[in-house]
């Protein structure tokens, strides 16, 4: 064959080889089809474990009960029983190992999430006890009168 055909041909083959070589070193070993579909299961296998290892922050009420027995007990019997501790107190994460005290949020806005009056027919929201934020004791914190762990009780 003529040189003007062979030269670009070798160049092209060399380039492809170079790319394949680079690919060999740059693509991790666990990259491939992990499942039955090339379209949906083509990925780096190790990433699944990386996501599994993501740290958990919301530990749930049961972990609070280990130390805060009384509060959890009161709370369990109250109309607020379905509200998780961490909804208001924030994610506990590694508390008390890393963070000794969780920040205490006493803001009205926290209560207003459920108890701000919205007059909606047929909506579950309308079934909750509600106040008009602007009309009901505007300057005071809700928790200065109502006990959030058991709202049936008044704060002395």
């Amino acid at each position, binding site marked *: 064959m003529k040189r003007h055909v062979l030269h670009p041909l070798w160049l092209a083959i060399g380039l492809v080889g170079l790319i394949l070589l680079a690919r060999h070193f740059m693509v991790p070993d666990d990259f491939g089809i992990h499942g039955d579909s090339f379209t949906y299961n083509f990925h*780096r296998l190790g990433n699944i474990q990386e996501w599994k290892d993501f740290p958990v922050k919301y530990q749930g009420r049961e972990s609070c009960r280990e130390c805060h027995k009384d509060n959890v007990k009161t709370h369990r019997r109250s109309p607020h029983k379905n509200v*998780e501790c961490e909804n208001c107190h924030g994610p506990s994460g590694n508390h008390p190992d890393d963070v000794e005290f969780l920040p205490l949020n006493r803001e009205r806005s926290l209560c207003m999430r459920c108890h*701000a009056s919205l007059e*909606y027919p047929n909506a579950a929201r309308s079934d909750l006890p509600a106040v008009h934020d602007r009309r009901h004791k505007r300057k005071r914190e809700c928790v200065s009168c109502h006990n959030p762990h058991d709202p049936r009780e008044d704060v002395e």
Partner: protein
Amino acid sequence: MTCSRREFLKEAIGGTVATVLPLSAFTFLTSAEARAAIADSKVRWAFLVDTNKCVGCGMCVKACKNENEIPYDAPVTRTWVERYVVTKDGETHVDSPMGGRDGFTSSAIRDEEIDPENIDKAFFVPKLCNQCDNPACVQVCPVGATYQTGDGVVLVDREWCIGCGYCIMACPYGVRFFHPKYKVADKCNFCYHRITKGLQPACVQSCAFGARRLANLRDPDDPVTKIITTERVAVLKDEYGTKPHVFYLGLDTNVR
């Protein structure tokens, strides 16, 4: 054309080698490996949202952002709650300020006060990734950075994602966004780190009203699976053929 015996053998052997060589690129599986590759996983995660129960407190959005380290004040979120108010004149007013992160505490929608007398119906609709069976977002990824796991959850490989944003455009539900810190695509993964440990997703745990629940469709005894299979549930944008796995109870036709 003449051909000597020597030439014929040479060409025949050369040809055979040239055809067989590319075959070595294939992996040959033993029958056990092949069976394992196509075996059905014992888990297929799905989600049930009961829009009748949602009160729009936004605790799920708050919990999700904290749990998954999504910058709290950035206007991006893995899950959000939409408020729909349908008025008597047939108009539908929709809003989701900050994705409903701070709950819905005002009756004004986009600064427009709506007279309660004029409201026909109003409801809240939580939204999250549908973990589709045919995820459009995965099909368009040019680098294999997003994929479906054996249990049906679609994940994003943060190390492999190049941030091109094709998947963000491809998702018909708009659940994907660009993570402002990691500069990659991000989305809800049903709190994969929690559900694989036997915990509930953060949004499910934080919902005081039972409006959000996780199901394993492969477990016939799962109470949530029973609801999905025996009650009348709907999915969003069925016509796209993505086979979404977030099921809704009480879904209104106004929800898009």
